[in-house]
């Protein structure tokens, strides 16, 4: 048991609720089956608009408080109108957001007060792949580098451990580091 601290650590994460959910879902694994959803509509050119408004989880459809919209496009160097981030940048956004959320949750659980967390996420890509110039070059990133700057009431090793544990439990980190079967169909 850790001794009660005089000032409560507050990173804005409800750890009790997360621990409660973990216990409940251990007993009811079927409720842990989630399906995350997005829709995507072509606007014009390379510009598309995606929406996120609900998902399936805890045995039923769940509605978000509002509909989230995401414009995606290509930059002007690709002769596009640059009306939104490129899709690959959304992948970087997803990875950064997932690791950052994880750091906050793990810090709360470990009783570490965060003051600031900022990440830069960079994906290296040889676009000879997507342009079909060289068949030996893959389309996607050949490496991703994430760099965190964290100010917290903790030692350097404790901060490194937060970042490491966050990767260990991150969905997006898993998605980008491990293969996934993907089915794309026309209905």
């Amino acid at each position: 048991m850790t001794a009660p601290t005089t000032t409560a650590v507050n990173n804005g994460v409800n750890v009790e609720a997360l621990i409660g959910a973990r216990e409940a879902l251990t007993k009811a694994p079927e409720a842990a089956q989630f399906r995350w959803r997005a829709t995507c509509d072509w606007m014009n050119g390379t510009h598309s608009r995606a929406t996120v408004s609900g998902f399936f989880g805890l045995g039923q459809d769940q509605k978000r408080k509002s509909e989230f919209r995401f414009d995606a496009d290509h930059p002007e160097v690709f002769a596009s109108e640059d009306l939104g981030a490129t899709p690959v940048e959304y992948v970087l956004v997803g990875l950064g957001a997932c690791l950052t959320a994880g750091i906050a949750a793990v810090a709360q659980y470990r009783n570490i007060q965060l003051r600031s967390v900022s990440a830069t996420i960079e994906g290296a890509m040889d676009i000879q792949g997507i342009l079909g110039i060289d068949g030996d070059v893959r389309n996607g990133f050949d490496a991703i580098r994430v760099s965190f700057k964290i100010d917290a009431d903790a030692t350097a090793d404790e901060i490194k451990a937060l970042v490491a544990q966050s990767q260990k439990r991150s969905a997006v980190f898993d998605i980008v580091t491990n293969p996934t079967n993907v089915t794309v169909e026309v209905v």
Partner: protein
Amino acid sequence: MKVAAIVIGAGHAGLAMSRCLSERSIDHVVIERGEIANSWRTERWNSLRLLTPNWQRRLPGCTYEGDDPHGFATMPEVIAFVERYARLIAPPVETHTRVTSVRRAEAGYFVATTRGDWQCRTVVLATGACNIACVPRLAEAVPAAIRTLTPMRYRHPGELEHGGVLVVGAAATGIQLASEIHRSGRPVTLAVGEHIRAPRTYRGRDIQWWMDAAGVLDQRYDEVDDIGRARRVPSLQLVGSPEHATIDLNALREIGVQLAGRLVGLSGGKAWFSGSLRNQCALSDLKLGRLLDAFDRWATDRGLDAELAAPHRFAPTVVDEKPPLSRDLAPRNIRTIIWASGYRPDLSWLEVPVLDRKGRIRHDGGIVDAPGMYLMGMPFLRRRKSALIDGAAADARDLSDHLASYLAG
């Protein structure tokens, strides 16, 4: 035949329990599928030595009295040790008797064997934690040209074809096999997932001395935050060798073993690895740092700093700038895959509904979720040392106490 207790398995754990039952004058029999110390005889590779020093070979009523307390026993030495223990305690063993089923009966359990049936009020499962090598489901995709084998069947590198070898898993088994196979001239790729880095010696003392003296091995199952997690932690990356060598990932990398991430797929003539190797190594280095911090604090608190070498830290695990995400399978590179991805017990004969949905036995510190049934020799069963030879004594005492009061109750 009727008896108060049946112990299944005559390895060190079953014999320790037998000794404790005899001390309590509990009428019992030990049933053994083969010879005493059967798994040690038949399911270990040739070069294996215990990961614990000789001084740690302690069983109820028996301590190590040889002249090499800091050495590591070979398998023939372990077998001789368990046989000697059996002669000392003279347990009622039925050897070459395989249990075919254990079922609930009127007042306890019905134990069917290949040499007769038994009725008992209590039963102790001491058949071991490592009966079956875990093989991941993706093994189904291994092409026919590749030979696969488990550590239960592997004996020495000479029996492998020449050419590349993929060792899947980097706990104690995986790193030991990677090391000796690579040294035999067969280039090894080691697929590394979660692993626990540990130096053989620290500040001049064996890691097991630290774990034992600082009380880490005595930590109880009801004292840890998440016992389910603690029971699933991979084994420490240790080898028992006359040189007291450390074989962590850096040592393997130095001899030329190619480190890769966790094996995640086999397709298109390639083995595919996760891109998470760097984080797996970071997690392990940080965990080692915390362990050594705890050892150093303990040593200072106990006033031992003067008699120990100075504290130091080990170099971080070196990870290639771009660890390979794939390796070609035969005929180009990998001809053999060894599944060093863990072990599980074989309880296929247990017809009592005590397994959870993952096939793990439900128990509270070895007291199984079925009246009068007990478990021995599993990782962190009652203490961190429960799966070690040295863990059997305390667990056998506790559980035989419980068993005796159950019989009396």
